[in-house]
C-alpha cells in the first residue's frame, strides 16, 4: 500500500506546531498502524530527521498508552479497538490519513502526538482506589460477590484510561473515564468504605483539571475501545448527589 500521511508535528509544549505531509510506500495491509509509523520513523531517522513521537507500550490493546486521532476518530475508523490493534487493511491504497494528538486543555501536547495524560492519574489519586490493610492473603470467597455484580464491576473496570472519550467529546469531558472508575468500585463490597469521599473527590479533581461537562451526546461510548457504556455516567451522577447530600463533609 502507498499512503499519504498528514501528521501533527510540535517540538514541545511551547511550540505552535503544524501539519507535515509524508509519503510511505510498500506498506503491508497486515501491519498495525503503529508498525506503519515505525516504518515511517525509520525513513525519517535514515534521512536525519526527527522521528514522530507517539505513545505506545503493550501494543496489544490492554495498557491504554497508545492514542492518535485518526481521520476524525480516536483510535481510527474501527470500533472497539485501540490504535495498536488497528491494521492497515482498514485503509485503502492511495488514502490520505490525517493524524492528530488528543485535543483537550487537560491533555497538553508534550511533543508531536504525545499528550500529557497525568490529569487522569491525579483523578485516580483523588479516590480511585480502595484502602486495603496489608496482611495475609485473604481466603478465597471470604467476601461473597454475585456473578451479576462481578460482571457489572468488570464491565466498568475494562476501562484502560486511554482518554479516547475525552478526545471524542465535543466538550473534552472526562465523565466516561471518571464514571467507569467510580462505578467499578461503587458496586463492589470492597469499595463501600470510601464510597462517598471517592466520588466527591474524583469529581472535584476532574473539574479542577479543566475537563468539560457532559452533554450526553454519547460520542465517548461510540469511540471507546473497551465499549464502556454511558450508563456509568448516570450511575456516577447518582453516586455524586447521594454522596453530596448525605456525607458529613461540609
Amino acid at each position, binding site marked *: 500500500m502507498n499512503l499519504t500521511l498528514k501528521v501533527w508535528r510540535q517540538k514541545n509544549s511551547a511550540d505552535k506546531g503544524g501539519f507535515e505531509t509524508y509519503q510511505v510506500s510498500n506498506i503491508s495491509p497486515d501491519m498495525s498502524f503503529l508498525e506503519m509509523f515505525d516504518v515511517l520513523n525509520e525513513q525519517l531517522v535514515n534521512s536525519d530527521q526527527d522521528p514522530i513521537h507517539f505513545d505506545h507500550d503493550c501494543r496489544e490493546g490492554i495498557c491504554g498508552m497508545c492514542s492518535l486521532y485518526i481521520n476524525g476518530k480516536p483510535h481510527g475508523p474501527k470500533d472497539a479497538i485501540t490504535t495498536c490493534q488497528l491494521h492497515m487493511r482498514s485503509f485503502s491504497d492511495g488514502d490520505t490519513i490525517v493524524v492528530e494528538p488528543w485535543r483537550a486543555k487537560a491533555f497538553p501536547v508534550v511533543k508531536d502526538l504525545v499528550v500529557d495524560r497525568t490529569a487522569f492519574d491525579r483523578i485516580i489519586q483523588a479516590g480511585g482506589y480502595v484502602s486495603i490493610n496489608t496482611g495475609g492473603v485473604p481466603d478465597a470467597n471470604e467476601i461473597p460477590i454475585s456473578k451479576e455484580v462481578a460482571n457489572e464491576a468488570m464491565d466498568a473496570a475494562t476501562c484502560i484510561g486511554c482518554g479516547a472519550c475525552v478526545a471524542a467529546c465535543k*466538550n473534552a469531558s472526562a465523565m466516561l473515564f471518571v464514571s467507569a472508575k467510580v462505578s467499578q468500585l461503587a458496586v463492589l463490597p470492597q469499595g463501600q468504605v470510601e464510597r462517598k469521599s471517592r466520588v466527591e473527590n474524583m469529581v472535584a479533581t476532574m473539574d479542577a483539571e479543566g475537563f468539560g*461537562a*457532559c452533554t450526553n*451526546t454519547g460520542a465517548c461510548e*461510540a469511540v471507546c475501545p473497551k465499549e464502556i457504556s454511558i450508563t456509568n455516567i*448516570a450511575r456516577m451522577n447518582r453516586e455524586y*448527589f447521594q454522596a453530596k447530600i448525605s456525607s458529613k463533609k461540609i
Partner: protein
Amino acid sequence: MSWLTETLTSTPGRKVIMAATGIFLILFLAVHLTGNLQLLKDDNGESFNIYAEFMSTNPLIQFVSKGNFFFILLHVVVSVFLTRKNQQARPVAYKVPVKSGTSSLSSRNMGILGTVILVFLIIHLKGFWYEMHYGEIPYKNYDGHEARDLYAVVDAAYSQWYWVLIYVVSMLAVAFHLSHGFQSAFQTLGMSHVKYSPAIKLLGIAFSILVPAGFAVIPIVMFFN
C-alpha cells in the same frame, strides 16, 4: 465554598439544574399546548379568551408562572456557564472534525438551538404575554364573563406570513432541542435502566415531534382561515 454551592457549581451539579429546569419547561410546554389548541375551536375565540383571562388572573397560576420565568432564566444562565467551560476545555480544535455518526446533530448543537428558542421567547413574550399583562386589550362579554380579546391579537399576528414563519421555525428548534434534551435530562438525573431508558427515549421522540407540531399547526391553520 459551602458543600451546597460546591455541589451546584460542579459540572454534574450544573447539569442537574439544566435537567430539572428542562423537565419543568417540558411540562409547561404540554400545559401551554392544551391551552393554545382552543385557538382552533370554531367559536371566534370565546373559550380561548376565557381560558387566557383565567390564566392571567388566577393567583396560583401566576405563582407558577413566576416560577416558570425563573426556571427559564436559570436554564439560560447555567447553559452559558456550561457552554463556556465546555469551549475552554478544548482550546485547540481538530483539523478533521469528530466523525459524524458518533453523536446526534441536535446533541452537538444544544446551545445554538437554545439561542434560537431564546430569541423566539423574547419576541413571543413581547407579542402576547406583555400585551395581556401591560397592554390595552379591549374586554369582551361572554354570557356575563368578562375576558380580554387576546384571540384578536393572536389572529392579527398570524394573518401575517412572516410571524407564521418565525413561529414554525422556532418550533423546529424546540423539536430538535427536545429530541436530544428529553432523554438527556433523565440520564443526567441518574435514570438509566435497561427496562425504562428505551421507553423514555421513545417518549422523548414522540413528545419532541407531537408537541412542537401541535404548536406549529395553530398559526398555519389560523393563517389559512
